[in-house]
C-alpha cells in the first residue's frame, strides 16, 4: 500500500502504537471498510496490544465508522490489549455520547491522557 493510500499514520511512543486517522470525513463506505482493514491489521497481523487512535484531523464520521471502532475495541480486548481514542472534536464527541459508546470505548481528551490510559 502506498503512503498516499493509507487511512492511518502509525507512530510508536513508549511502547504504545499511536494511529492517527488521516481522513477528515469518515463517511464513505469504501473508505470506512479500508480504514477498518488497516485498524484490524494492527491487532490481527501485527499483534499490537496497546493502541491509541488519534482523531485530531477527523471532522465527520458516520455510524458505519462507529461500527468499525466497536469491532476494533472487541479485537483489542480479545487479544488482551488496550485501546483508547483521543483528541475527538466536540461535534464527533457528541455522536459518541448520543450513541452512548462513551460508556464502551475509552475516550481521552488528548494524546498524553490516552498514553497514560493504555501504557
Amino acid at each position, binding site marked *: 500500500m502506498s503512503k498516499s493510500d493509507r487511512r492511518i499514520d502509525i507512530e510508536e511512543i513508549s511502547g504504545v502504537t499511536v494511529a492517527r486517522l488521516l481522513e477528515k470525513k469518515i463517511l464513505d463506505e469504501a473508505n470506512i471498510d479500508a480504514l477498518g482493514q488497516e485498524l484490524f491489521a494492527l491487532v490481527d497481523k501485527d499483534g499490537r496490544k496497546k493502541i491509541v487512535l488519534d482523531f485530531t484531523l477527523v471532522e465527520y464520521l458516520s455510524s458505519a465508522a462507529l461500527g468499525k471502532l466497536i469491532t476494533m475495541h*472487541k479485537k483489542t480486548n480479545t487479544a488482551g490489549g488496550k485501546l483508547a481514542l483521543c483528541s475527538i472534536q466536540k461535534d464527533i464527541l457528541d455522536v459518541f455520547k448520543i450513541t452512548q459508546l462513551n460508556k464502551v470505548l475509552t475516550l481521552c481528551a488528548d494524546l498524553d491522557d490516552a498514553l497514560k490510559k493504555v501504557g
Partner: protein
Amino acid sequence: MNEPVEFAASIPSSLREGLALQDRIVQVMERFSYSARDVFAVRLSFEEGLANAIKHGNQLDESKLVRISCRIDGSRMRVEMRDQGAGFEPDAVPDPTQEEFIERPTGRGLLLMRVYMDHCEFADGGRCLIMERERNSPLPVMDD
C-alpha cells in the same frame, strides 16, 4: 439569496453516488449561511438515511434506485429519500443504546437521524424517509 433551492436526483444503490449529492446539499446550506452545526447534523443524517436506503432498503442491488429530493431555504431544509426495497417497520428497530445491543457494530443510523433532525418520518411502509431541520435548531446538550 432568498429563493428556495430545490433539486432531485435518482441514484443507483451505491453510497459513492450519494457523495456528490451530499456535497451539493452542503454547498447550498453554506450559501444560505447555515451554521457548521446545522451542516454537520444534515450531512450525518443524509449519510445515515442513504446508507439505510441502499443497504437495508435496496439490499445493495445497483439495478435499484434511490430517489432523492431536497428543498433548502433560509430557514429550513427538507430531504426526502425513496428506495425500491421491501420496506421495514421503524418501531421494530431496537434501541442501540440498550445494554444487549450497545456492542453491535450496526443499528445506530436511525437514532442519529432522530436526534440530529427536527423531523424524521417514514412513509410508504418504510420505503420513504422524510427529514427536516430548521436553521439553528438546538441539538441535545451532552454533558462532559
